[in-house]
């Protein structure tokens, strides 16, 4: 919080509001959720960074995916992600969403989460310490400042590819496409 930045804040107040009020929905998929209670309670106190857990995805703009993602969970993750209002940011927590981690040869675990929903940042480690979440949050601030956390725009633009990948893994999706799909461009 530097006084010199006041001018900049006033100029880009929208960005500043997004940055300092990252309301987070935790997706308790795996063992990573064990790191969340100390983060949001008084020991590490995530509210210093404006990170508050919220009840529903419709109030959230940061999506923290903690732990491995099974095929059934992926369905719920996509639903949750599509319900969040723009702008929304996703952070994968732990090594399992990155490339499968220790579940690299499992028959029912998703290996690369960014094939199905856009991910703005990763926190590597098994498990990462709670401090890593705050490092990720401060990195995300930088990315928002530089207009680099644009996963939600990418999701809209490349929705056809995401939807195709989602349909490959989940044999039947119960909801219609979120965005209209242009069939002019060939899917590789």
């Amino acid at each position, binding site marked *: 919080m530097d006084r010199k930045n006041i001018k900049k804040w006033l100029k880009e107040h929208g960005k500043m509001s997004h940055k300092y009020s990252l309301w987070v929905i935790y997706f308790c998929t795996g063992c990573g959720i064990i790191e969340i209670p100390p983060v949001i309670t008084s020991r590490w106190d995530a509210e210093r960074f404006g990170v508050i857990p919220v009840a529903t995805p419709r109030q959230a703009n940061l999506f923290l995916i903690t732990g491995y993602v099974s095929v059934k969970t992926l369905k719920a993750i996509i639903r949750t992600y599509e319900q969040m209002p723009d702008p929304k940011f996703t952070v994968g927590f732990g090594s399992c969403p990155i490339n499968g981690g220790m579940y690299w040869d499992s028959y*029912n675990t998703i290996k690369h989460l960014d094939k199905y929903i856009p991910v703005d940042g990763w926190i590597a480690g098994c498990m990462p310490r709670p401090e890593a979440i705050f490092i990720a949050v401060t990195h995300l601030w930088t990315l928002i400042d530089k207009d680099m956390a644009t996963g939600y725009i990418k999701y809209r633009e490349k929705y056809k590819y995401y939807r195709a990948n989602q349909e490959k*893994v989940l044999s039947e999706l119960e909801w219609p496409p979120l965005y209209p799909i242009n069939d002019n461009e060939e899917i590789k």
Partner: protein
Amino acid sequence: MNNSLKREIESMFSDIQVIIPEDTRILITARKEQLLIILKFLKEKGYNHLALISCIDWEEERQFEMVYILTSYLQKNNEVTGDERLHVIVKLRIPRESAEFITVIPVFENAEPYEREIHELFGINFEGHPRLTPLFLEREYKIPPFRKDFDTRKYVKEIFDNIPFIPEKK
């Protein structure tokens, strides 16, 4: 207590094996037709808690082994609870080619999710089960994934590694 129970079960059928591997365990090896009678008898004896149904795939012997573990919560028939509680294990084998079995829901109602799980992961059909619908898995597998001849690495290569990455913005 163990020995009297052992004698009682042995007297029921001629071709039944009862072993006491530990002080708190009784291991019964039976045939498919005897299962319901044994479970009913044990339930009346006070072993009214079906703790687990499990399945083992013996691929080389071409057999599935079903394991039923029973125990009792209540103090009954001078039975001691706690650490010295007696566990009754019933084991039986069925051929692997025709994976057909009977349900034990008439005796223990809580067998339903266990049998659904085994049906899903091992592909064993339980005759008389009211709904053998998928429980955990979202996809359909040609070979049920917990069978020994299911090659997970090959499956991962074929399915998950073939999904393309999203192209970057130009």
